[in-house]
C-alpha cells in the first residue's frame, strides 16, 4: 500500500472524554504562564484512546456441516434422544424390551394404522450463504514514541514508532435454503392407546410402554431454511513506523503530519449460530466456532494537533488512515474475513515532549 504523504500521527484522548479534557486544559491555560516558543525538545511520547472506524467483516459458509445429538443406534438398551422426542432406559432397565421412559412432540409422528412412532435426529445439513457486518466504532489504545532529525526554527523533521490495540466485534446474519440430513427411527407402539402429544413419559416403569428397539431406521433429507448469526471477535495489534513533519505555531500549538509502514496481528475467533427450520415446523440447530491468528500489513497517513497546557505537557487529537490487508479466519467450510482496507482511526490523549 502506498503512503499518501509524510505526516506524524499523534495520540489523542477518546472522543467521549475529550470535552472534559479540553475544559480542564482551558482551566490550566488560564493559570499557566505564557509558554516559550521553543524549549528545544528532541523526543516525544504520547498515549491515548483510539476509535476505529470503517472496519467491516464478511461471513460465508459452503458445504455440509455436522450436528450433535446422534441417537444411540437402532439397538435397544440405550438412551435415544431425538430432535422431537426420546426413548430412554427406564428404572426396570427396559425389562422385556419395553420402556416407559419415552416421549414425543407432535401428533404427526404417530401412525395409528401402523401403530408406530417416528422420531427424527438431524445429523448434518448443507447450505451456501454469506453475510456482512459493520458495527463500529471500536475503542482501543494508541501510543507512540518519536524523535527529531532536523530542525529549522519552528519546524522539525523526525520519526515516530507507534503501537495500537483495538478489540473488534462484528456480527452478521443471513438466511439461506438448506437441506437437512436426518436419521429417522420408528418404534413399535403395539396396540396401546398412545397418549396425546406432546407427551413426556417418566422413568418409573409405570405408564404406557413401547418397544425400546427401533423397528426401522433410515436416513432421509428434507429441505428447510437455515438462519445463521455470525459473530467475529478479533483483537488487532498494530505497529507503524515513519517520518514526521512538525510545525509549532502560536506559542502553544503543534501540527504534525506523518506517514509510513503499518503492520498488524489479528487474533480472531468467529462463532456461527445456525438454526434450521423444516417445512413441517420442526427445528434443528447447531453452533460452530473457528479461530485463527493472521498477519496483516499496509501503510498509514496521519495528522495530529496538540495544544500545550503546561511545560512538557500537551493534549492532542489525531486521525489516521491505515489501510491494511484482510485478516482471514476459516475452517471446515466456514469463513470470516476482517476488512481492514479502509480503516480510519481517531485518537486523543496526552503528549509529552522532552
Amino acid at each position: 500500500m502506498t503512503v499518501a504523504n509524510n505526516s506524524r500521527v499523534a495520540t489523542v484522548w477518546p472522543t467521549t472524554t475529550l470535552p472534559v479534557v479540553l475544559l480542564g486544559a482551558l482551566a490550566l491555560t488560564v493559570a499557566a504562564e505564557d509558554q516559550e516558543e521553543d524549549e528545544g525538545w528532541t523526543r516525544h511520547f504520547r498515549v491515548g484512546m483510539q476509535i476505529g472506524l470503517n472496519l467491516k467483516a464478511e461471513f460465508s459458509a459452503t458445504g455440509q456441516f455436522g450436528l450433535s445429538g446422534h441417537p444411540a443406534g437402532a439397538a435397544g438398551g440405550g438412551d435415544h434422544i431425538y430432535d422431537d422426542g426420546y426413548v430412554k432406559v427406564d428404572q426396570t432397565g427396559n425389562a422385556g424390551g419395553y420402556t416407559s421412559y419415552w416421549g414425543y412432540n407432535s401428533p404427526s409422528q404417530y401412525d395409528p394404522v401402523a401403530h408406530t412412532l417416528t422420531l427424527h435426529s438431524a445429523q448434518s445439513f448443507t447450505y451456501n450463504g454469506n453475510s456482512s457486518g459493520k458495527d463500529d466504532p471500536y475503542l482501543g489504545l494508541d501510543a507512540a514514541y518519536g524523535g527529531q532529525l532536523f530542525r529549522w526554527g519552528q519546524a522539525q523533521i523526525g520519526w515516530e514508532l507507534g503501537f495500537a490495540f483495538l478489540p473488534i466485534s462484528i456480527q452478521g446474519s443471513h438466511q439461506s435454503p438448506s437441506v437437512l440430513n436426518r436419521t429417522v427411527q420408528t418404534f413399535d407402539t403395539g396396540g396401546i392407546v398412545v397418549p396425546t402429544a406432546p407427551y413426556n413419559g417418566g422413568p418409573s416403569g409405570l405408564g404406557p410402554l413401547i418397544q425400546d428397539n427401533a423397528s426401522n431406521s433410515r436416513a432421509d433429507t428434507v429441505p428447510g431454511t437455515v438462519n445463521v448469526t455470525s459473530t467475529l471477535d478479533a483483537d488487532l495489534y498494530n505497529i507503524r513506523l515513519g517520518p514526521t513533519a512538525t510545525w509549532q505555531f502560536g506559542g502553544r500549538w503543534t501540527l504534525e503530519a506523518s506517514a509510513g509502514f503499518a503492520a498488524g496481528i489479528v487474533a480472531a475467533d468467529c462463532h456461527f449460530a445456525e438454526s434450521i427450520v423444516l417445512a413441517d415446523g420442526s427445528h434443528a440447530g447447531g453452533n460452530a466456532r473457528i479461530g485463527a491468528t493472521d498477519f496483516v500489513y499496509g501503510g498509514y497517513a496521519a495528522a495530529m494537533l496538540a495544544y500545550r497546557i503546561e511545560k512538557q505537557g500537551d493534549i492532542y487529537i489525531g486521525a489516521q488512515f491505515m489501510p491494511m490487508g484482510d485478516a482471514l479466519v476459516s475452517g471446515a467450510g466456514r469463513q470470516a474475513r476482517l476488512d481492514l482496507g479502509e480503516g480510519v482511526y481517531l485518537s486523543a490523549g496526552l503528549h509529552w515532549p522532552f
Partner: protein
Amino acid sequence: MNRSCRIPAFGGVLLALLLLCGRVEAQVLGLSVTSSPSPVKLNGFVTYTIDVTNLYSLIPSLPGVVVTNYLPSDVTFFSASSGLTSATILTNGQIVVFQLTTNLFYLQPVELSVTARATAPGDGTNTVTVDALGVAESVVSVVTTVSGGADLGVSITGPPPGGLVNDWLSYTLNVTNAGPDSVASALVTNSLPDGARIISVSPTNQSFSVTNNLLSWSLSTLSAGTNVALQVTFQPTTIGTNLTLSAAIQATDGSADLRATNDTASTTLRIGDFLPGNVVPQDPSPVQLDPQTGLMEQTVKLLNQGTNQIGSVRLFVLGLTNRLVNAVGTNNADPFVVYSGTIDPGKTVDLVLEYFVPSRQPLINLTFAAAEVPPLDLSPPTGSPFSITLVTNLPSGALLIEFPSSLGSRYSILYSDHVSFTNAMTAQPPIVAPADRVQWIDNGPPNTVSRPANVAARFYKVLLNQ
C-alpha cells in the same frame, strides 16, 4: 424487717469519726453485685453475688454492717449465703437482709450470695444496699433478663378410621415449637395400644427407643417456628372401640414451656374385626403384562359360599414380594384390595389385581385369602378438578381416561353412573402421576364397584389431591 446497729462504748469518739467519714461517704463502703447466669431461662435459677468492702482506713474495723438485697418481681427467693462471713440472714418476701455479726475490716471484702428462681419472663432489677451507723448508704443494682421459654406442642394426625385388627395403620406426630425461644432438647413420647406391633418409624435418621408400648424420641435443637413430623406405622393386634393412642412432649434442657395445654395429644382408635361372611378366592388367571399401564395384571374371582349377601370383601395376596399397585392397605404384611360392592350367595365377582414387577415377568404360585369386611368409605375427597382430555373404550371392555398431570402429583378419580354426580364414589386407590399425562383404566373391581361395560353410563371427574 429488723435493722440493728451497735454503737461501741467510746461512741462519742467513734461518732465524731463517723461524721468525719460522712464527708467522704461515697468512699467508705465499696459495694458491687453481679448476677449469673444472665440471661436466665424461665424456671431456672439466678445467683446474685454481693461484694462489700470497707474502704475507709480511719475505721479499720467497721461494726454494724447491714446488707439488704431487694429481689425483682420476676424471681422468687430460693436461698442465701454469707459464705465465710458470720451473719444473720433474714428474709421477708422479696427482701433478704444480711446482718454481719463481725466487723468489716479495712480492705477485707465480704462475699454474700442470694439465689432465686426465675418465675416470669422479662427484665428485672435487683438492688442491694449496705448500711452502717454513721456511714452513708451505698446502693448498687443489676438487671437480669429472664428469657421467655418456648411453647412446645404435639398433635396426632391419623390414622384413618375403619382399621381392622392386624391392619398396618399409619399416623403422624406433629411436633412444634412456637417459640419465642429455641429448645436445646426435648423428649417426645408416644403410647400405643396394648399389643400393638411397631412396623416402621420415620424419619429413619431420627433415633428412637421402644419400651413395651412406649415410643420415645430425644429431639435436639427445636428452633422457634420448627415443625417436626414423626411418622409411625403400627399393627394393632387387639380389637376394641376405645383404644388410645397418645403422645406427649417436654423440654429436657430446663426450658420453660409457656403453654401446657398442647403438650399432650391423644386419639381414640376403633379397631374392628372381620365379618363372618364366607367368601373365597378362586380361579386366578395367569399374570400378564399390560403394556398400556406397565403393570402385570391378574384376575381373581371372589365366590360367596355363604347363604347371606356379602357387603364388602378384602382380597389378600399372601407373601407378595412385589408391589400390589391397586392395594388400599396392608394387613399382617399382606397387601389387599377391597371390593366395595355386594356379592349374592353363590355368585362371583372378578377382581383385577395390578402388580408392578420390575422384571416384567409373570409371577407364579401366588396365594390369596379373602374376608368380608365393613364397607369402605368411598366418599369423594377435597381437591381441585382437572380436565379429562381423552375418554376411550378399550377392546377388553375397560374404559381409559387421560388427563394432563404433574409428575409425582396425587390424583383421585371420582365416578358416578349419573351425570349430576349424585352418589359419586372414589376409585381406589389414588393415583400418583408417572408422567405429564396420566392414563387411568376403569377395569371394574376393585378400582371401581363394577365394570363400565356393565352399566348404562359412567361419568368421571379427576381431582388433584390437596
